[in-house]
């Protein structure tokens, strides 16, 4: 079963922005918040050339990698066509204005 871990308050993540969660192993996780206050979590590594997705521009349910402009779907971690590739996603939920990550 998932182990929900409190990460931060929703307001700690800017709208259309992100925060980085550092793990002791397995690489960083990027937590995104969009304009509708939906929250998503992806491995902070673009499938193209490992760019930090957390630093990209968030729009709709997508983020654009800052290095070479690939668009990655926030819900599934898949690159938007015609690019091909995906990065792993993590379960995340918001309760009472607090963000929890499944680890």
């Amino acid at each position, binding site marked *: 079963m998932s182990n929900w*871990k409190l*990460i*931060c308050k929703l307001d*700690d993540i*800017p*709208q*259309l*922005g992100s*925060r*980085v*969660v*550092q*793990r*002791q192993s397995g690489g*960083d*996780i990027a937590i995104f918040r*969009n*304009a*509708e206050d939906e929250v998503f979590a992806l491995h902070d590594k673009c499938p193209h*050339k*490992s*760019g*930090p997705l957390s*630093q*990209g*521009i*968030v*729009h*709709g349910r*997508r983020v*654009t990698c*800052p*290095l*070479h*402009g690939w*668009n990655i779907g926030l819900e599934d971690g898949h690159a938007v066509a*015609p690019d091909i590739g995906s990065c792993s996603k993590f379960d995340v939920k918001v309760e009472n204005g607090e963000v929890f*990550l499944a*680890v």
Partner: protein
Amino acid sequence: MSKPRLVLIGNGMAGVRTVEELLKIKPDHYDITIFGAEPHPNYNRILLSPVLAGEMTIQEIVLNELDWYKENKITLHTGKQIKTIDRIKRKVIAEDGTEEEYDRLLIATGSTPFMLPIPGNDLPGVIGYRDIKDTDEMIDAAAKHKHAVVIGGGLLGLEAANGLKLRGMDVTVVHLGPWLLERQLDEVAGKMLQRSLEDKGLKFLLETQTEALIQGESGRVAAIRFKGGMQIPADLVVMAAGIRPNYALAEASGIYCNRGIVVNDTMQTYDPKVYAVGECVSHRGIAYGLVAPLFEQAKVAANHLAGYGIGRYTGSVTSTKLKVTGIDLFSAGDYMGGKDTEEIVLNDPHGGVYKKLVIKDNKLVGGVMYGDTADGPWYFQLLKDKRDIHDIRDSLIFGQNLVGDVGHAGNSKAAEMADSAEVCGCNGVTKGTIVQAIKAKGLFTLDEVKKHTKAASSCGSCAGLVEQILASTIGGAYTPASSDTKPLCACTDHSHKKVRETIVAQHLTTKEAVFAFMEWKTPNGCDKCRPAINYYLISTFPHESKDDPQSRFINERAHANIQKDGTYSVVPRMWGGLTTPAELRAIADAAEKYNVPTVKVTGGQRIDLLGVKKEDLPNIWADLNAAGMVSGHAYGKSIRTVKTCVGAEHCRFGTQLAMSMGVKLEKMLFDMYAPHKVKLAVSGCPRNCAEAGIKDVGVIGVDSGYEIYIGGNGGIKTEVAQFLCKVKSDEEVMEYSGAFLQLYREEGWYLERTCHYMERVGLDYIKGKILEDEEARKAYYFRLLDSLKDAKDPWQTSREEQPIKQFIPIKLEA
């Protein structure tokens, strides 16, 4: 609730393109049914000629596989011709009795070849040239018969003749006109074309009228007789003497037609529930037979079918290119000219090159090119943009190479490049890969090629070359969008120009207001439009519109330049390239304290600390700020550096105090955001050690004052700055260069460098604003100073207004 029903009559390029555009902007809005008379899915009719010539297969030219219809839940009826449109009951009836009701009807029935009304025009072996069936019949005839006659020396006729010749037939082209392609070429180019086609073995009978086709013993056509009695053998006769729009079906249903289905600028017929696009249409009295205008129509029709109600089709300027391998031919616009036009002609019959440009009121209105068509797309762009060419007139005929660079080493002969030649140096994309993608995926625009191949998607310097490859691969199907009307991104149909104008006119001060007022198709834009809009807002209303960090690229959010490994580079500002021992000591201390792995001197006379972790950025900057240093903006679409030589302060040749002038300029422009980065240089004498000739604004000291140059570029597009004016004092340097930069800030499109802006509007236009109108110049200068009056270090702003915590990662305990 059931969805409204959309029925499309005509499964061809214009109709299906409209459906594609519709699905793009409003998927799932309609239940869609498509009727096609041919038994095939939608294919690229333009590429039938390469199929006939044996250069491509039918399979390669299919644009929408049957799976595409399935995936989009479209009901497709192939091989079913619609017999009746019942507008009262709102349904269509096919010949086999199939009926389909509609809420909206789209007619895209195309055209049919015009069959000359002469005896024998219905004999076996006499065909038009329109579809796969005709092509198959020609291929079949070429295998069995010897003599082919093509009636009509237009584009289609010549392509058919070339294909049949390549398939081994003896081909004669019969043409009524005095020279070939008289609708696309003037006489000189027409004759040159004829000579090269004759070299390929084709025969021509010009100014010849056909009288009858004569039946042979087998029942098939055997000969052709001309007026005057001459007769030649013909086992195959291809009629390519023009097309007739198919509007009988629409006319029979009572829709108003006049040499085509009459539509308004929204592609609507006289029945508001019925739209029409493509070759069957008569728009403002013109029926287009080329594909590019049809695509423009498709976009407009789709927008109105989707219920957005924006976009008007106002007609097209067309260009053509003959798809006969080995023959380079391009024409566009009004290539014949008239009494109120001027012509620039380059004629080299021995070298096989002929170019003619037709100019009216200092604007290009048409052109013909034969033998060297590399610059065709560029001329076409100038024509569509209605660019004033007065300032480049003397070298215009020699092409973009001489006016400005088109790419690396000016290599622009797209058609002659080997398939293995690298086109895009950033992403390693070869010409072969691009051609393959264009053909296999049915790409028509530069943006599509960028997306699918990545060519021209990084630095963009090869965009011109990619456009040429696109043009030479798909011929007349290619048309560049006019820069003024090209949509900003996929979120909108509005152009940069339109967005800028609307922000000013409607006094829009937030991105939300722009999205709402201009009916954005996405909820909050994308990485292309958001930074552009954010810039337009803050540059238009500097003290009113609030900067939106989330609409800025990461570099401008972190005030540092992201590197390939996710670390950042830090560049403290050194005014005019000057520094002090104390500053150097502070930089050295910071580099050691934060374990900076690489320290480098930049091209703009600054020191770059590379490899800084994001979480260290606030601290390293706190240290540097404490030592009196501010951000060098080495990351922004902003003022970067003012590079200086040592000037008259030290140099024995110096005429002006270059360092002091440079520092003054840099202090004036500190924190200035612009459509793209801005670099300046000041040299103290004409030896120009600060390389002012390749800067956005270059200032060169002379004994009597300063010369100001603008629009130079040392990057992607090496461009020598052009002389703007000569001034006497430091104050004037600041006023003139400040006014120019403010003009660029107010009118440039996001990501347009000064050299591109200048190419778009012309140097004369800028001189008119800055030199000839003193009041305007002072006003621009004042607005620049006003918008920068509260300029401060971005780190100070960050500390005051934005939580620094964005830089701090959240640690997850095990």
